[in-house]
C-alpha cells in the first residue's frame, strides 16, 4: 500500500512536465478508474458475479461523468475569462476582478468608518460638555448639551453596520483568495483523486464542488451583484446615492446655554442641525455598507452555497450543506 502511494505521487510529479497540475491528476484518475472498472468487469464476467458486472457498469457511468466534468472545466477555465472579458469589457480574469472589487469596497468602507469615528468623537465630545460654577461650595452645574446625546446612538449604529460590512466583505475576499490560489492547485486535484475511488467518492465530489463554487460561482455572484448596485447608483433613481465620503460640520455646543428653542442659535437647534446633516447624508453613508457590505455578500454567499449543493449532487455527494450558510 505504501509503495503504491509512493508510486502514485512519483507519477504525479513526472506528469507535471506535460500538463497543468490538475489536468495531469485528472488524466491519471481517469486511467485509474478505467483500469479499476476493467478489472471489476473481468472478475465479474469470469466468475459470473452479476453484482460486480453491475458495479463495473456503474463505474463506467461515473467515469463518463468525470470525463465530461473535466472537459467542461478545461473549456470554462480557458475560455471563460476571454468570454467574460469580451462581454464586460474587463481585461483581467473573473477572479481578479471580483477580488479587486471586494478589496476596493473594503478600503472604501474602512475610510467611511474613519469619517464616522471622527464624527462620533466630535458629537460625543460636544454632548458631554457641561459647565459648573461654584463659590465656597455653593453653586450649580449646567448641562446644556444634552441634545447632542441623541445623535451619538445613530452614529454608533451606522458604525456597527459599516464594521459588519467590512467583516462580511473580508470573509468573501478570503474565500475568493482560496478559490483563486488553491482551487485548481489543490482542491480540484485532491477532489478528483478522491472521486476516483468508490469509497471516497462522496468526499471527492464535495471537494470538487467546493473548488468550482469558490473559483467560478462566488466571483461571478460578486461581480453580478456589484454590477447591479453600480447600475442603480448610476441611474436617475440612484442619483442621491453619491459616491465619496460624507462630510458633516459639528457645531460647537455652548454648555451654559439653556434656551429650549430649536433655532439656530440654541443648543437643541445645533443638535438638530447635525441630525439634519446626517439625514441628508444618509443615502451616501448607508448605501455602501448596507448594499455592498451586507446584502450583496449575503446573496452572493447564498448563491454560492446553493450552487455548492447542486454541484456536489452532480459530483456524487448529495448532502445537506446548509451548515455552511451560518457564515452569513
Amino acid at each position, binding site marked *: *500500500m*505504501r509503495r503504491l*502511494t509512493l508510486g502514485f*505521487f512519483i507519477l504525479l*510529479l513526472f506528469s507535471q512536465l506535460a500538463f497543468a*497540475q490538475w489536468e495531469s491528476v485528472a488524466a491519471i484518475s481517469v486511467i485509474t478508474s478505467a483500469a479499476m472498472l476493467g478489472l471489476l468487469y473481468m472478475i465479474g464476467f469470469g466468475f459470473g458475479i452479476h453484482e460486480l458486472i453491475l458495479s463495473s457498469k456503474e463505474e463506467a457511468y461515473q467515469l463518463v461523468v468525470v470525463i465530461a466534468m473535466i472537459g467542461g472545466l478545461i473549456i470554462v477555465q480557458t475560455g471563460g475569462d476571454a468570454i467574460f472579458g469580451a462581454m464586460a469589457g474587463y481585461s483581467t480574469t473573473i477572479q481578479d476582478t471580483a477580488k479587486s472589487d471586494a478589496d476596493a469596497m473594503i478600503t472604501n*468602507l*474602512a475610510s467611511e468608518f474613519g469619517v464616522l*469615528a471622527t464624527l*462620533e*468623537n*466630535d*458629537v*460625543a*465630545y460636544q454632548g*458631554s*460638555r*457641561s459647565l*459648573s*460654577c*461654584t463659590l*465656597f*461650595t455653593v*453653586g450649580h452645574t449646567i448641562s446644556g448639551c444634552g441634545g447632542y446625546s441623541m445623535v*451619538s446612538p445613530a452614529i*454608533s*449604529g451606522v458604525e*456597527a453596520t459599516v*464594521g*459588519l460590512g*467590512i*467583516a462580511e466583505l*473580508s*470573509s468573501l475576499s*478570503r*474565500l475568493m483568495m*482560496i478559490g483563486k490560489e*488553491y482551487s485548481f492547485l*489543490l*482542491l480540484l*486535484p*485532491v477532489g478528483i483523486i*478522491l472521486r476516483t475511488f*468508490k*469509497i*471516497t467518492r*462522496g*468526499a471527492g465530489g*464535495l471537494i470538487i464542488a*467546493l473548488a468550482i463554487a469558490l473559483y467560478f460561482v462566488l466571483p461571478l455572484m460578486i461581480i453580478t451583484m456589484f454590477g447591479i448596485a453600480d447600475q442603480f447608483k448610476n441611474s436617475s433613481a440612484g442619483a442621491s446615492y453619491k459616491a465619496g465620503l460624507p462630510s458633516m460640520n459639528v457645531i460647537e455646543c455652548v454648555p451654559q446655554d439653556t434656551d429650549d428653542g430649536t433655532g439656530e442659535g440654541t443648543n437643541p437647534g445645533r443638535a438638530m442641525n447635525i441630525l439634519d446633516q446626517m439625514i441628508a447624508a444618509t443615502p451616501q453613508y448607508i448605501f455602501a455598507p448596507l448594499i455592498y457590505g451586507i446584502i450583496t455578500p449575503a446573496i452572493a454567499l447564498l448563491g454560492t452555497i446553493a450552487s455548492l449543493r447542486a454541484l456536489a449532487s452532480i459530483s*456524487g*455527494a*448529495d*448532502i445537506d*450543506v*446548509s*451548515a*455552511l450558510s*451560518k*457564515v452569513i
Partner: protein
Amino acid sequence: MVDVCSAGFSDFIYSGVMPAAAVSAIAATAVIAASYMYGKATSNPKLNDYSKTEAVQLPITIASIIFIVLVISSFCSIDMNSVRAVFNLPVLPNSTDVFGAAESYLDNSAIFAQQALVTARYQHSAYNILLMRSTYACEWWCIFGQSGFSYQGFSGYTGRMNLMGMLMNTSLISLFSALNALFILNFVKSGFFMMLLPIGIFTRSMPYLRAFGSIFIAIAMSFFLIYPATLAVFSMMDKLFTSPLDGLTCQSGDNTIVIKDYLQNDENIISRDDSDPGLNIGEKLHDDELARAYLPCGQDYPAQTAQLAAYAFIAAAFLPTVALLAAAASARYIAKMFGEEVDLSRVAQMV
C-alpha cells in the same frame, strides 16, 4: 486508547481490534452457516437467500476492515512535505504525517481565532477605560471654588466598543468551532472508532441489524480516513493565516511598535499600567497621552480587527465544517455501498 500513529496503536489493532474482528467474523460465519443448514433442512427459501447473500457480504465487510487498517498505516507514513512538493507548495521545516498535519491545521486555526479574540478584547478594554475618562478644567475662581467646563474626551468610542463586542462574539464562535473540530480529531486519533468495526462486522451479517452494522463501518471509515485527510489538505493552504495587522508598525518616540504584538499581548490591560510606572493614569493630564498609553501610538484599528475576525472565521469555522461535511458525505456514500442510507450532515451543525 493510544494515538493512531504511535507504536502502541499497532498493538491495539493487532492485539485488540483484529482478534475482536476475527471473533465477530467467526460468529457471523457460524450464524450464516447455521441459517443455511436450517434453511436447507426446512426448505426455507428466505433463509437460503439470506445465507447466500451474507456469504458474499461478509468477505466484503472484512476486506473493508483490512482496507481501513492499511490506509491508516499509509497515512502515518506519508510525509506531508512530499505531498506539498507534488503540488508545488513550499515545504515546512518539520515533516509530519496526515494526522499530524490535520492537528497542526486545527491548532493554527484555533490560535488564529484566539488572536482575533484577543485583539478585539484588548481594544474593547482600552475603549472601556478611555470612555470613563472625565476631565474638568477650572477656568475662574479656582482658589475660592471651582468653575469651569467638564467633558468626556473619549466618549466617542461607544460605537467602536459595541463593534468590538460583536467581533469578540464572532471570534469566540470561531475559537469554539476550531476546538470542537480538534476534539473530534483527537477522538478519532485515539482509535476509539476502531472498536466500532468488530461490532459492525457481526451486526451487519445479522437480520434486522444490517443497517446498524453498515452505519458503524461507514462512520469508522469516513471519520478515520476522510476527516483527517481533508484537514491535511487545508493545512497546505499557508495563505489562510495571513493577518491584516501583519507588517503594521508605528513610531512612538524612538521606539518602533509592532501593532500586532501590541494588540495581541496577553498581558492584562490593567497590569500594563502597573508594570510601567510611566503609564500611571493619574499622571496623564492630557487626553492624547492617555490614548497613547492604551492604544499603539494613540491609534486604534477597528477595520483591521473586523477583517481579522472574518479571516479567523473562515479558517477556524468554515473550513473545519467543510471537513465534517466531507466526512458526512463519505459516510453516506459508504453506507449506501453497504446497502443503507445515513445522513450525518447534522454533525456539522453542532456549533
